[in-house]
């Protein structure tokens, strides 16, 4: 019992102490009257209303932070869902077919270097609406690492597993479900984790441009109203949710990969 408490403290104490030290440093640096950014104490008093009332809704974009985050998560969720389904499908295709690989890989290698936001004007032109455009930006951001990692995973399936499947005469579908997906799972989940991280990075920027409800536009709006403390609070939330999303994908990888995914 004592040993467990000690080891628990050994893991949790260092980051807590570090956080406290950084808070003190920040407080000291921003306490002078000429400081351009508010110290943490001021951030807390300024944003107290937002922290304790995340669920208020006064119509329009005057909503609690929960609703902004919820809107952003919904966009990310949809775009990411498309990206993972189509990404894994395309990854399997170019991982298992030499010709698909030769035809598509160079294209993907060029397309994946395009910054997410560069797609936004084009998708606005195509969809003529902010909502689908933002979802498309998430989709196009997350899909490349998913495709590329899935393809590598499929290409690296040991010859032995393929031979076993051949001896057993597994058909294409059985091979896909019983051998290919689990064998490539560690790679696929690496792609999915990079994908979710990039999606969350892109959504804030995309929302700043499309406006409406969403944590990105909340930040931009706060800047326009010079509510610096609101911006800092929003950044804290964005960071925590990004971290939770990453953990969530890693956790489902562990669950689905049945011991083959090491995260």
């Amino acid at each position: 019992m004592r040993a467990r408490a000690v080891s628990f403290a050994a893991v949790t104490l260092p980051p807590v102490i570090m956080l406290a030290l950084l808070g003190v440093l920040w407080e000291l640096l921003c306490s002078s009257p000429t400081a351009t950014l508010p110290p943490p104490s001021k951030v807390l008093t300024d944003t107290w209303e937002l922290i304790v009332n995340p669920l208020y809704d006064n119509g329009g974009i005057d909503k609690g932070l929960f609703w902004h985050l919820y809107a952003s998560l919904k966009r990310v969720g949809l775009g990411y869902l498309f990206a993972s389904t189509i990404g894994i499908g395309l990854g399997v295709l170019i991982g298992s077919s030499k010709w698909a690989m030769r035809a598509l890989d160079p294209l993907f290698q060029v397309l994946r270097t395009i910054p997410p936001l560069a797609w936004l004007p084009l998708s606005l032109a195509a969809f003529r609406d902010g909502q689908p455009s933002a979802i498309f930006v998430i989709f196009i951001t997350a899909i490349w690492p998913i495709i590329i990692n899935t393809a590598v995973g499929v290409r690296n399936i040991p010859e032995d597993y393929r031979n076993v499947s051949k001896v057993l005469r597994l058909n294409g579908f059985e091979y896909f479900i019983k051998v290919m997906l689990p064998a490539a799972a560690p790679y696929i989940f690496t792609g999915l984790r990079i994908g979710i991280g990039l999606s969350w990075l892109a959504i804030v920027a995309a929302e700043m441009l499309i406006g409406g409800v969403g944590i990105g536009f909340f930040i931009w709006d706060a800047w326009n109203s010079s509510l610096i403390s609101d911006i800092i609070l929003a950044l804290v939330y964005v960071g925590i949710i990004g971290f939770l999303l990453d953990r969530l994908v890693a956790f489902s990888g562990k669950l689905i990969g049945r011991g083959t995914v090491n995260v």
Partner: protein
Amino acid sequence: MSTDKPVEYLKIEHVCKTFGKGESRSEVLRDISLDVAKGEYISIIGHSGCGKSTLLNIVAGLTDATSGYVFLEGREVHEPGPDRAVVFQNHSLLPWLTVYDNVRLAVDKIFSGKKTSAERHAWTLHNLELVHMTHAMKKRPGEISGGMKQRVGIARALAMSPKVLLLDEPFGALDALTRAHLQEEVMKIHAELGNTVLMITHDVDEAVLLSDRIVMMSNGPAAHIGDIREVALPRPRNRLELIADAEYIAARGAVLEFLHKKSHYVEAA
């Protein structure tokens, strides 16, 4: 087990294999012909790189012969199938499945529609019992030793009720004691089930102990069957009693002499 006039069961006929084309063309196997009787235990021995694994893969249907044919019960073989179950050198169990599920995967695929779920379960357990692995059936391959993995590989192959069991250096990666133990078990299973076995090995003692006939391959390139030695030892065989047995010593000597004198070493190797 061995007969003077083998009944045609597995027939390898004038099999040749070349890899590549033009300049990089290399001939691996030249004109291999071999008849295997039902229930016979055949070892194929030769130096590494002589193409014995290629020959096994051709029989398995995993590799196509450049020319020549393989017949099993009079029907030509040109694709892999469960009637020629392979025990791979590195066990090749699927790491995300338990020991039980690895065998069950094969049982489910081969007996779907022919056995009920309960029968398939019983058959899976039966084959795990044959190799004494029921105690670890809920474990994943990563949690058991190399010898145990190889047992499961054997159970999976046996569970397919194959006409021919193909063993690709099945004990090559194991320590000497584990190897001896598994050899005993394979002998027992062979005595019990009367499987027809084609085994690749580079271990002379293993070949003499287990086989009815030993096929000696010359060195590559263009390896061919250099000699075939019949091992006229009664079964069951006991490795300790055999140490002083005249036939055992003679067979062992013949294989050793072939490997070290008649088949020249490849200089580049």
